[in-house]
């Protein structure tokens, strides 16, 4: 069911591309439409699709994803029903599916309970922005038990010794946060920033996916040579928010996603 994340990145590299890693908020605007968005992103050749499990206080997210999460929660999204909805379509997608959420919704099911349900839903890895390796012993054990990849983040300020520790704890890929900021912030890609990413990638024993603030094909193109994968979240979610209805949402999101993926050629 679940796919090998490293293999997904390797496949993209073989095709001369950085992997495309789009994000959708689970249960937004509703489970059915969210499933269609995932299918559409898969159809475009996304290597990894990130599914957000909404949390009431998302510390690492900007207003766009916060609002989408809030809307999903108001519509009744829970960790269990988002995982169920993902499980219902996981068999039909070629992309590897990764869940992104915060510690507290995971704890509500328990580390082991959450890992089990995620694995059963065909999830390959889990990103928890507010869980660092220092507090992750029980989580790592649970992931190990169910064959899930615990994906950790590194940031521009992460010192080398910490980076090493993060790489030791993580599996699947390293999520490199492009800047100090929340998701959906303005990303400026100066030479210094790109050079910093290259340095991290040179050190990394895992594929490196860069995310936070990537919104345009030009940014994706600039990142493709320095990253193994590029994550795009808020810009895609905004397309869904601005759409008149589900059909328009799928069309509008697909249009941007196709442009972004097309820009990842090296």
């Amino acid at each position, binding site marked *: 069911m679940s796919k090998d994340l490293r293999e997904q990145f390797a496949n993209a590299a073989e095709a001369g591309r950085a992997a495309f890693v789009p994000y959708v908020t689970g249960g937004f605007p509703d489970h059915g439409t969210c499933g269609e968005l995932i299918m559409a992103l898969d159809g475009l050749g996304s290597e990894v699709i990130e599914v957000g499990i909404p949390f009431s206080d998302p510390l690492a997210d900007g207003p766009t994803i916060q609002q989408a999460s809030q809307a999903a929660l108001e519509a009744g999204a829970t960790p269990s029903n988002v995982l169920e909805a993902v499980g219902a379509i996981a068999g039909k997608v070629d992309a590897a599916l990764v869940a992104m959420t915060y*510690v507290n919704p995971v704890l*509500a099911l328990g580390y082991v309970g959450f890992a089990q349900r995620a694995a059963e839903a065909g999830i390959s890895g889990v990103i928890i922005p507010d869980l660092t390796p220092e507090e992750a012993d029980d989580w790592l054990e649970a992931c190990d038990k169910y064959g899930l990849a615990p994906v950790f983040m590194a940031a521009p*300020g*992460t010192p080398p010794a910490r980076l090493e520790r993060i790489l030791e704890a993580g599996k699947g890929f390293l999520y490199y946060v492009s800047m100090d*900021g929340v998701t959906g912030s303005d990303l400026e890609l100066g030479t210094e920033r790109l050079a910093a990413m290259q340095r991290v990638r040179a050190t990394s024993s895992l594929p490196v996916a860069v995310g936070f603030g990537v919104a345009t094909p030009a940014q994706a193109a600039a990142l493709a040579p320095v990253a193994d994968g590029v994550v795009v979240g808020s810009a895609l979610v905004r397309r869904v928010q601005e759409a008149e209805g589900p059909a328009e949402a799928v069309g509008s999101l697909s249009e941007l996603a196709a442009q972004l993926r097309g820009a990842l050629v090296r």
Partner: protein
Amino acid sequence: MSSSQASSLGPLPDERGHFGPYGGRYVPENLMPALEELHAAYLAAQQDPSFHAELEDLLANYAGRPTPLYEAKNLSRELGGGRIFLKREDLTHTGAHKINNALGQVLLAKRMGKKRIIAETGAGQHGVATATVAALMGLECMVYMGTLDMERQALNVTRMRMLGATVEPVTSGSRSLKDATTQAIRDWVTNVKDTHYIIGSVVGPHPYPLLVRTFQSVIGKEARAQLLEREGKLPKAAVACVGAGSNAIGLFHPLLDDPIDLIGVEAAGYGLDSGEHSASLSAGKPGVLHGAYLYLLQDPHGQIIEAYSMAAGLDYPGVGPEHSHLKDIKRVTYATVDDTQAVQAFMDLARLEGIIPALESSHALAHLRELAPRYAKDDIILVCLSGRGDKDVSQVAAYLEKQK
């Protein structure tokens, strides 16, 4: 420094900021270097006599410490039982215990070379204290505050603005302290290089619960020494209100090794059964919010439930990790008091002692009605009067008008 006083409980927190299972660091990776930097600055400051000298000078000559310890004889007579002593944190500069911590943290910020200060506030007292110390040190200051709290604490909003701070309205969620805190953390993630986040209570990621406790412990240390000097004995009980828990830890921590009943009072709002309250310890369960593992109000899916209290400073769905631990090991007892009881206590203290207490502190006072009669006539009950009630006068007047 103060860890020796908790020797029977072991030196808490441990190296990684845990009080038993509680505390720790649950934050986006961007903040980890800043937390390390803050912890290092704190440890260095603790070893540095010049830091203590500067802080002590400011506490004495700027904040107005030591604060008086006042025996509330009229209140004691009315309630019957033990002798009630009030630790008058309401008489500090800016009118609440929050100034103790703000002064300590702003000195750390200066040592770290930060140019900008951010804070979150509920009742506004922490915001006012932060705006005050930022003005004193010439630092840029931004305070996040829920729009609901801006309405009910309009006086403090004006004060912060007069002090040169920008008050940033937060409209998400419950529009109160929880959401202001979430916004402040997001700001910090974005501006972490030049910004210090002055957290106002014993919550947040390590080292905040430790350093806020250290800066607030002056309350309990002073009160303990004052009682020994004046009465030649320790109190039988010590009582403080608990929102996130900073004035309570400040009072309790230096008393943990003494044979004293320690009682924290949470806000029951409209009553525990109503579901609209802020009683995280009495009615919550452990989870992670704003960087730490602690008792939380949450639904079965791990979503944070919005807290409610008439007292904006208690209106937070979590409580500090040290309180969470002290509850579990039963060293501190946690009680609850609802809005009506708090307003009654607010009026009682004004009428009997000529002191208008903060609505937050009124929760501690309200519990005395139940507590005081359990003690003998010469037993001392120490209460932290954490702040004054100027900010709450119009809110209480409106409440009373509605009850008529």
